[in-house]
């Protein structure tokens, strides 16, 4: 089976967000980048499916030229080929993103398309579903378990203290959540092999955004630091007093 995974390049933000001067992005000069967490598990899941059933894994991203790094990461985990829909790095709205991805995916006609449930940064909760409609395929979201048996996909979604089970025929679109698997660390030889795998570049067309980003705002902090109860083990009595005051001990 052929599996196609869509990933997004996001900064590793650490403890504090600093905005760019135009307030339309995060200052990333001192930050590293990664694949958004749910999608990192999406790549691992795709590779496991193809290891079990045969076929190929294609990884696709829409992002700046540097997003090639994240595609190479996915290739090192075991994807076979990659497609970069190259942008100038500015924010794309969910509809434009979905339309550009759907064009590429329709031409590729994979058996299964995997998205992350939502991106770590924009968190729009809709690109996978929009793509499913554009392709005319069923969509199941938020999967924490996934299996393919006899051309059918069985997926499990967490719902409180239960799991809801779906069964849909392939081809289908799914979105997954972190925890569906523990992604492998690529080996050094795998990273070297990834450098030689093909990355196609295309230039997608952007539509007018109907969800238009105006500016970003860092929420106000509390403007005060924690009250220090003490240092080292000698702080224990003060901590237990606090527990009693809060009624938890």
């Amino acid at each position, binding site marked *: 089976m052929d599996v196609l995974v869509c990933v997004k390049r996001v900064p590793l933000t650490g403890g504090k967000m600093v905005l760019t001067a135009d307030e339309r992005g995060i200052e990333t000069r001192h930050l590293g980048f990664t694949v958004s967490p749910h999608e990192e598990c999406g790549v691992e899941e795709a590779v496991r499916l193809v290891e079990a059933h045969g076929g190929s894994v294609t990884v696709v991203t829409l992002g700046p030229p540097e997003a090639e790094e994240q595609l190479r990461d996915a290739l090192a985990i075991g994807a076979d080929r990659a497609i970069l829909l190259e942008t100038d790095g500015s924010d794309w709205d969910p509809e434009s993103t979905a339309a550009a991805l759907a064009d590429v995916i329709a031409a590729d006609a994979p058996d299964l398309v995997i998205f992350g449930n939502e991106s*770590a940064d924009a968190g729009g*909760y809709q690109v996978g579903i929009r793509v499913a409609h554009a392709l005319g395929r069923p*969509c199941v979201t938020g999967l924490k378990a996934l299996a393919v048996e006899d051309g059918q996909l069985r997926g499990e979604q967490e*719902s409180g203290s239960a799991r809801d*089970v779906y069964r849909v025929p392939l081809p289908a679109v799914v979105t997954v959540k972190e925890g569906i698997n523990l992604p492998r660390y690529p080996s050094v030889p795998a990273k070297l092999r990834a450098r030689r795998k093909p990355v196609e570049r295309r230039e997608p067309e952007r539509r007018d955004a109907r969800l238009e980003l105006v500016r*970003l705002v860092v929420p106000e902090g509390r403007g005060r630091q*924690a009250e220090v*109860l003490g240092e080292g083990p000698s702080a224990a009595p003060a901590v237990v007093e606090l527990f009693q005051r809060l009624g938890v001990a």
Partner: protein
Amino acid sequence: MTVLVFVEHAAGEPDELSLQALAFALDFAGGNGVDAVLIGGADAASDLPVGTAHVAELDGGYAPQAWARAIAQLEPSVLVAAGSERGNEVLAHAAVMTGGALAANCVAAAPGDPAEVTRMRWGGSLLEEARIHGPVKLMTVAPHAVAPATAAGDPAVAPFTPELRDEDLVARVVERVDTSTGGLSLAEAPVVVSGGRGVGSPEGFAPLEELAGMLGGVVGCSRAVTMAGWRSHTDQVGQTGTKISPELYIPCGISGATQHMAGCKGAKKLLAINSDPEAPIMATADYAVIGDVAEIVPAITAELRRVSG
């Protein structure tokens, strides 16, 4: 302009997050009308503070695309739902069906053309001011961004039978598997003691387990810990893990990355135990103890045993 709100419900009662979405919609509508739409559940609709409560009569379990089709048939120009798993999912389908634009996890909004919204990015660590253009506007409301609607109303309850397409029922819940362990869940525990990379090893969690047990709580962890394979993802507190809201949260050896803080914003009080007094978590914590987690946590459990005699 009538604002339509998708109200989720269980056991004859509207969901708390849907009542928050309803309050958000009432505020957005100003003096204009607000209607509700429910999938089944006429009981839950009977005293909602809305003009009309449309109740779609649909058989079977949850089927996101079918639910969205039912809602889209009411031809809303403004559609609001809770920023719950199902609220976000159903509205994404409804956005395609109505040709509308969807802003997920809004915390504030003002009507107009375009409508102006403030929505969450990065699980709430960053806010985005945005405009929604076009004739159909959809919004989900971030959990706990607004207080729930509490006033009772006397709506006209209007049952309807939606016209579905075959493809609407392909993805639907066919089975429900109970996964409850009988124990206290991370999401509902009154006390959570979490460990980060600073705990040092999987074995380093033993003192945290003991402390959590004595306080009637459970153990959580940071993403770094699950990615290292030290603990199961079900223990992970964070943007891509479990969102918690305990009375007291005790992060041990956790620096306070935005990924983690997005999961514990609901905690009433936060006591950080960390060797670094400059760690970002100190700006969020109410209380702190500075030093080595491996020494401090056992000292706290010993003191608890001493005072309880």
